[in-house]
């Protein structure tokens, strides 16, 4: 099924996704920790980058993931229920499967591996198991919504995001290095990539393909670039004139689509999704 951009629905779905991940209470983002299996405290997941699916609002503490990406990098912290205890020293139960260097864990083997929270005397005070899974597919997203086809207008700069998933459609946590490519540099150009992100500038009307790769896995997204309005001053995503700007603003996709058609939809059904299960 191909997905095309649809700004209002996309925004709503993104909000729903964020609510599902973090809970929509008084605190807009309240990460869920992983309970220690011995019941003495909680393990917190720490995103090392702003493109880790476990941290929808950027680096820092995120929801404790159901599954981790093979090769993914992440941090963990532990909080004793008894706050008076000295901080726990975290250790991988099997370093050949889950490497710990400094404070960065790297998942090296599929399956469960224990993480130990050690007391100051070296005894195990608590533990948790992380489940590592091999990525089998990649999704290309904007604002955490999958797109196989993305509508934009010349002059826009869009931040694309790649997510690794396994066979069960889980979004896999951990920092990963993707490679990005645009087929036709006359239509769109990569102006920067980092980790799971790519910034793409739409140059001229036409169609091209954006590719995100992780090892042997590749996902394509068709970029449909139209001549259209895109202004930096619009705050509600609605273009105010019919002239394309020089592309110095960073669009979010919904803005660009709005500019191209007036109502935000430039064709195709809108079936945005927040992606896999985290």
């Amino acid at each position: 099924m191909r997905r095309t951009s649809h700004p209002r629905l996309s925004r709503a779905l993104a909000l729903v996704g964020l609510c599902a991940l973090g809970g929509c209470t008084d605190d807009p983002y309240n990460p869920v920790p992983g309970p220690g299996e011995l019941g003495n405290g909680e393990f917190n997941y720490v995103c090392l980058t702003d493109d880790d699916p476990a941290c929808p609002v950027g680096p820092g503490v995120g929801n404790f993931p159901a599954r981790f990406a093979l090769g993914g990098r992440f941090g963990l912290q532990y909080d004793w229920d008894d706050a008076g205890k000295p901080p726990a020293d975290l250790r991988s139960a099997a370093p050949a499967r889950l490497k710990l260097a400094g404070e960065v864990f790297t998942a090296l083997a599929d399956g469960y591996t224990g993480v130990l929270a050690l007391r100051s005397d070296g005894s195990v005070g608590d533990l948790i198991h992380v489940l590592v899974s091999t990525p089998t597919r990649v999704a290309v997203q904007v604002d955490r919504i999958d797109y196989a086809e993305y509508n934009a207008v010349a002059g826009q700069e869009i931040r694309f995001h790649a997510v690794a998933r396994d066979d069960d459609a889980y979004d896999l946590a951990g920092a990963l290095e993707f490679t990005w490519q645009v087929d036709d540099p006359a239509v769109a150009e990569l102006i920067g990539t980092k980790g799971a992100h790519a910034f793409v500038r739409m140059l001229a009307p036409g169609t091209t393909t954006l590719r995100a790769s992780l090892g042997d896995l590749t996902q394509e997204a068709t970029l449909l670039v139209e001549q259209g309005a895109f202004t930096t001053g619009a705050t509600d995503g609605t273009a105010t004139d019919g002239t394309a700007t020089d592309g110095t603003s960073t669009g979010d996709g919904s803005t660009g689509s709005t500019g191209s058609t007036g109502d935000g939809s430039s064709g195709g059904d809108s079936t945005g999704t927040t992606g896999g299960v985290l």
Partner: protein
Amino acid sequence: MKRALLTLLATAAVGCAPQYRAITFQLRSQPPHPVQLDDEQIEISVGVAASVRAVLHSSTMIEYVDEPLDLDSQDGDVLQVVPGSGTYNFVLIGIREGETCIEVEVDFEVQECIPVRVVAPPS
């Protein structure tokens, strides 16, 4: 007469202290894969850490309370045993597939070595 008295004293001394008969384990955590903890064989999956409580069984009327107990893996590349918090609590960790045994040392005396098999995680 003297020999009989010594025998009696020795018997009385033994009766006042626990005598090792066996060790059993109780699981304290819920590992993601089953861990087998029977008297004669321990089986655990690679990557799994299982918190266990050791129970020492005495052949005399006197039970073990807090006598020193140490569990040592004979091959730390296959299985590791890490002390847990609390008396007789330990964490068993499957490192890689293989077989080894856990040496049971009670009151600074080695009593037995319990066979351990570390298996691949179930697919």
